[in-house]
């Protein structure tokens, strides 16, 4: 009994540590004072001012546009790549997969500066386009890693059967393959969107000329001094991302019902390690989840 109590208390302490900053942010988003530290009454002022703050609104606009566009484009390219890759075998498949894992395993800062060098080298003006291209680039591997397992489960004979029965390859793809892999595609798209709106490091190096996403806006604001509007914004963002990820998780647990599979797809690294099962040592997580 005592031991159980100590156990619970310890876990509670660690959770307190993990949640303390989030509570602080949320509580202070309702604080009627510019300075942090003292509480001067409840207000919704910051939530109202937030929407007339041009810097924040422009950052929000770019975050969402980049998130949606990069999710859609990376889902299309990534799904096609997964389908093409599924039919490929041997050395070539290994090679493509290993290169695909590079952006997953490389430190973000290296991916960021490498892309920045490329864009400057190609004389592309750093801004919206380069930001979008970068986000598509780091999203594609995650889409592929979501779709590939679905293709593995797919019965290859179904597609052949459809062709034998006179379906054109396009029609067979639309009616046989796509519905089967759709859950993986949607999960990949949602994952791509969340990774995109959450990214800081790669965006930081690959954007310019006044185009910044929310992470970059927060970073520059934090350096200049603190504005409670950030707290209001972060509270809203947290709730939105929370809602999104609960949807992803419900979807995944529905799909994997009965297999006892859990998913930690909520965060890049956890997902990366979980998915790159035969690459990095951290793979055991995934293997054990699979059993």
């Amino acid at each position: 009994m005592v031991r159980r109590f100590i156990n619970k208390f310890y876990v509670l302490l660690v959770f307190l540590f993990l949640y303390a900053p989030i509570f602080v942010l949320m509580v202070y988003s309702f604080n009627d004072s510019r300075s942090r530290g003292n509480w001067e009454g409840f207000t919704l002022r910051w939530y109202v001012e937030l929407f007339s703050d041009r810097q924040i609104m422009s950052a929000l606009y770019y975050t969402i546009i980049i998130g949606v566009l990069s999710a859609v484009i990376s889902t299309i390219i990534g799904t096609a790549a997964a389908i093409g890759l599924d039919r490929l075998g041997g050395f070539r498949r290994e090679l493509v997969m290993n290169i695909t894992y590079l952006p997953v395993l490389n430190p973000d800062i290296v991916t960021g500066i490498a892309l920045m060098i490329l864009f400057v080298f190609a004389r592309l003006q750093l801004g919206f386009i380069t930001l979008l291209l970068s986000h598509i680039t780091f999203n594609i591997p995650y889409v592929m890693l979501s779709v590939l397992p679905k293709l593995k489960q797919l019965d290859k004979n179904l597609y052949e059967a459809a062709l034998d029965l006179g379906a054109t390859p396009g029609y067979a793809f639309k009616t046989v393959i796509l519905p089967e892999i759709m859950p993986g595609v949607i999960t990949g798209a949602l994952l791509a969107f969340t990774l995109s709106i959450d990214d800081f490091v790669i965006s930081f190096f690959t954007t310019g000329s006044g185009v910044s996403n929310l992470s970059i806006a927060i970073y520059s604001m934090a350096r200049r001094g603190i504005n409670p509007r950030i707290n209001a914004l972060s509270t809203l963002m947290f709730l939105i991302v929370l809602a999104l990820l609960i949807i992803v998780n419900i979807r995944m647990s529905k799909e994997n019902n009965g297999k006892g599979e859990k998913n930690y797809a909520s965060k890049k690294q956890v997902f990366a390690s979980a998915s790159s099962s035969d690459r990095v040592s951290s793979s055991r997580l995934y293997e054990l989840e699979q059993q």
Partner: protein
Amino acid sequence: MKRNWALTPYLIWMIIFIVVPLALVVYYGITVNTDSGVAFSLSNFKRFAEPIYLRVLWRSIKLAIISTIICLIIGYPVAMILAGNSFKHKNVMVMLLVVPMWMNFLLRTYAWLTLLEKNGIINSILGKFGLPMLNILYTESAVILGMVYNFLPFMILPIYSVMSKMDYSLIEAAEDLGANSLIVFRRVIFPLSLPGVVSGITMVFMPAVTTFVISRLLGGGQFTLIGNLIEQQFLYVGDWNFGSTMSLIMMVIILISMLFMNKADGPERSGGLW
């Protein structure tokens, strides 16, 4: 080659946006600009060997190792308790562990400023109880705290996932054979959890050694890490060659730590990416 049309757009994309950029980093890393144009040179590697840069490298590795050890010490018991039968709804607890990561990490790190400030929340609580003030903001301790805070779940999750799949009958067998709980832990539980520990260490160490944001926000810019150096070279100094050299060195560190952890994970799992 059926269906190659599906792969082709990605192959082109991959070459332009993954292979070429990394090749450019290598190119810049091993060349210098001279009056007569670009020349192959390893002088930037030599430059990195100067004490001022080695100190930064050493600090990065030291802080990352300390954070990893703290994460292991704090996280291992958490994983063990969560995998045990202390909580009814294990899945909910694990979900709760992941939820904080869903908030932008800049914001969470930034919130620690409010907590740690001289007149911040922690100090006002300490003050009420007449306890001494905690002044760690803009010190190495704050940077370590930021790393532990951000990466602790990456330590807990893999260990938890290995532990929750552990064959309980092995533990019972050990107990039946007369082992006390310390021996059971040392001889059965810990060795079986080792793969999770290895994953956890990799997953904490790698982002910790490459960060430049945590040190900037919580270290107040005084505690330059190798990530900060790279950022400076590209954004302020404009010496891409030296910045690329350091990126290459960082990649090598990651590579070595990965190989090292792969070894530790057992010989049967060799092979893979590298």
